[in-house]
């Protein structure tokens, strides 16, 4: 039976392949839905954004003009755009290292522990699966300057009570803390997966070679073996923190005086609040270039040092 079925399909396949223009033809045919979806959902909108960035098109306007690089020139003197770039950079530099470091530490601790692994994983993963906008409301209450529990605690120990979300000196740090809280769980799970993939023998071998302390085991085995995971986590965390939007929009609306304005919110604000689609598209392009650039740098630089076991 099996023989018959095999020979049958073996006979049919070349005939079909020939009719469709060989194996390559079939491959294209099978890939066609994905290619169409990619064209319609990603490439064409991207090209539209690219075209819009060189126009002065306003939402609802009946016409538009090609204005060359004027949108990009406007950015150079735009106070809001400058603030938004600066804040996004600060936010990323704050959130990425902290959330990666804390997640790695926690992952190593959880992995080394003997009990409650599932519980810890669930507890730290909770922020990732919860709805950010709903959680932002909880944060708003926690960080409230006069009725918030955080400041109530600080008042009890006699420390200063900053206006976490209302002061331009603190707001980006406060949003950063929320960002770290959001990202740690996600990174933790990735690190845990990376840790379980490290062969146990390596630890045994390193012990024989004289790596006795926990630190030297970590530094000589865990750290290099975690390289590929680390690369992935860094890229994911950077792109996630560059894309920060919902906490800013719900908690501070970019204020006070642009102190928490971030790139994605500027794009949203220009496009959907001021209806400046052309300018918004231009900022989107800048945003895309930054994200792509980051990815390139990271993959090129770090890839060279990553040890694929």
């Amino acid at each position: 039976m099996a023989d018959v079925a095999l020979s049958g399909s073996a006979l049919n396949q070349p005939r079909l392949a020939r009719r469709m223009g060989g194996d390559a033809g079939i491959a294209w045919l099978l890939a066609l839905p994905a290619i169409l979806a990619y064209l319609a959902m990603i490439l064409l909108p991207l090209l539209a954004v690219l075209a819009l960035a060189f126009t002065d098109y306003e939402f609802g306007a009946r016409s538009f003009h090609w204005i060359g690089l004027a949108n990009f020139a406007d950015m150079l003197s735009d106070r809001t755009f400058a603030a938004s770039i600066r804040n996004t950079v600060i936010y990323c530099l704050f959130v990425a290292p902290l959330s990666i470091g804390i997640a790695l530490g926690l992952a190593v601790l959880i992995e080394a522990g003997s009990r409650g692994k599932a519980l810890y994983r669930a507890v730290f993963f909770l922020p990732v699966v919860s709805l950010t906008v709903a959680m932002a409301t909880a944060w708003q209450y926690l960080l409230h300057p006069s009725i918030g529990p955080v400041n109530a605690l600080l008042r009890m120990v006699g420390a200063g009570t900053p206006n976490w979300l209302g002061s331009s000196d603190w707001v980006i740090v406060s949003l950063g803390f929320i960002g770290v809280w959001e990202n740690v769980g996600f990174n933790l799970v990735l690190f845990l997966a990376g840790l379980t993939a490290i062969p146990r023998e390596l630890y045994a071998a390193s012990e024989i070679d004289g790596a006795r302390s926990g630190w030297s085991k970590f530094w000589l085995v865990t750290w290099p073996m975690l390289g590929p995971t680390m690369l992935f986590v860094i890229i994911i965390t950077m792109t996630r923190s560059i894309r920060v939007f919902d906490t800013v929009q719900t908690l501070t609306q970019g204020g006070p005086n642009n102190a928490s304005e971030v790139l994605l919110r500027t794009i949203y604000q220009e496009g959907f609040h001021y209806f400046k689609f052309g300018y918004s598209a231009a900022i989107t392009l800048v945003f895309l270039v930054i994200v792509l650039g980051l990815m390139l740098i990271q993959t090129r630089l770090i890839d060279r040092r990553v040890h694929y076991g």
Partner: protein
Amino acid sequence: MTKDIVTKDMRISRRHTLTVMGGAAVSVAMPSVVRAQAAEIQVHYSMPAIFKEAQDAVMEAFTKKHPEVRATYVNPTPTYEDGAQLLLRNAATNSMPEVSFQGLNRLRMFAERGVAVDLSPLLATEGDLAKLGYSPAILGLGFHAKVQCGLPFATSNPISYYNATLLRRAGLDPSRFPTTWDQVIADAQKVRALGDGNEGMFFRWPGDDWMFSALLYGHGGRMLNEAETDVAFNGAEGLAALRLLDRMVKEGGMPNFAGTADLQAFSAGKLGMMFRTTAQVRSIANSVGSNFELGTTVMPVIDAQKGRLPTGGAGAMITTKDPRKQEAAWKFVKFATSAEGTTLMVKNTGYVPCNQLAIDDPRYLGDFYTANPLFQAATKQVHLMVPWYAFPGQNSVRVTQVMVDNLARIAEQKATPEAVLADMATEVRRLIPRQG
């Protein structure tokens, strides 16, 4: 697989054909009915959280009164902003609802872009407008860019909210609420002196320029000059407005609440006095519940002669240029803004009535205000209401953000009122259209 799709397609097309045939049969059989019922219009509004009940009530009453018009609502948009976007999007594809309720300060943009139809010819057919309750002041709220682009449907003005329980604890008499800002600041200090995180006052300056304009208009100032060619807020009135805000922070200890932190502090009973729109009376009363005794009253007076207050809220505009649809749309707008429509709106929202008949004649709303005293504060200020200024040109919304950003510098005590006023004037000047 392929066969399935084909049959499904055929099924759809068969059903489609049937519907078309059915429709054709009906129109052949009863041509006169079809023609009479042809006046179908679609109506759009924003903020269903506030307006749904009112709009449903208006629609029900309208359908009873005008069975010849088939009006339906399109999906309401969550905010005025979304509402404006929807209409602009629809304008681009020629699929606008015939009637739309928009934020009063956005009507100007729709007038300038030729989306809102001039209502003057329609109003002209109605004869004596005073008899319909359209006073010049009410019409003025929908008059922009030399066009009667809308009629106000729901209006609001800023009022004072207070926590009577907390004021009493601070040794103050809530029944004699301050009528001047000096007194407000003095009382705020007394509430703050209670300690334990209690705050005296909050003036809701963030969000947009609305509450700042209350301070500016209160001093008798204006945003731009008459010809709208240059800023006018950078004079003595504007400086006085900013100095007052500065004093609220310096002397009144006004905290820099972000987002809705002021509402949270107030509901928690930790804020003595709060100044913001009357539109929130209902929701604030709900969230306060029986935590403490809530009171509302008129705004403190700045200049008894020249002082005015800005008007927020929504207005109805007509978008269709088709005369038959326009007639039906006008019937709906006229009803929604009539004494009857405004009464339904007030009872279901707590906004200020915008039909003079409903304001003057106690038969419409007398009982309602006796039963709901919290809503009275805003109605006592109706004679002070002037339009919420909508800046001309393409940057009208951005101007409000520039103002808020600069006000934040005073709230944070990072700049003096003089410096802020100068910067605000320079930045706004750059955003208004250059004329002549």
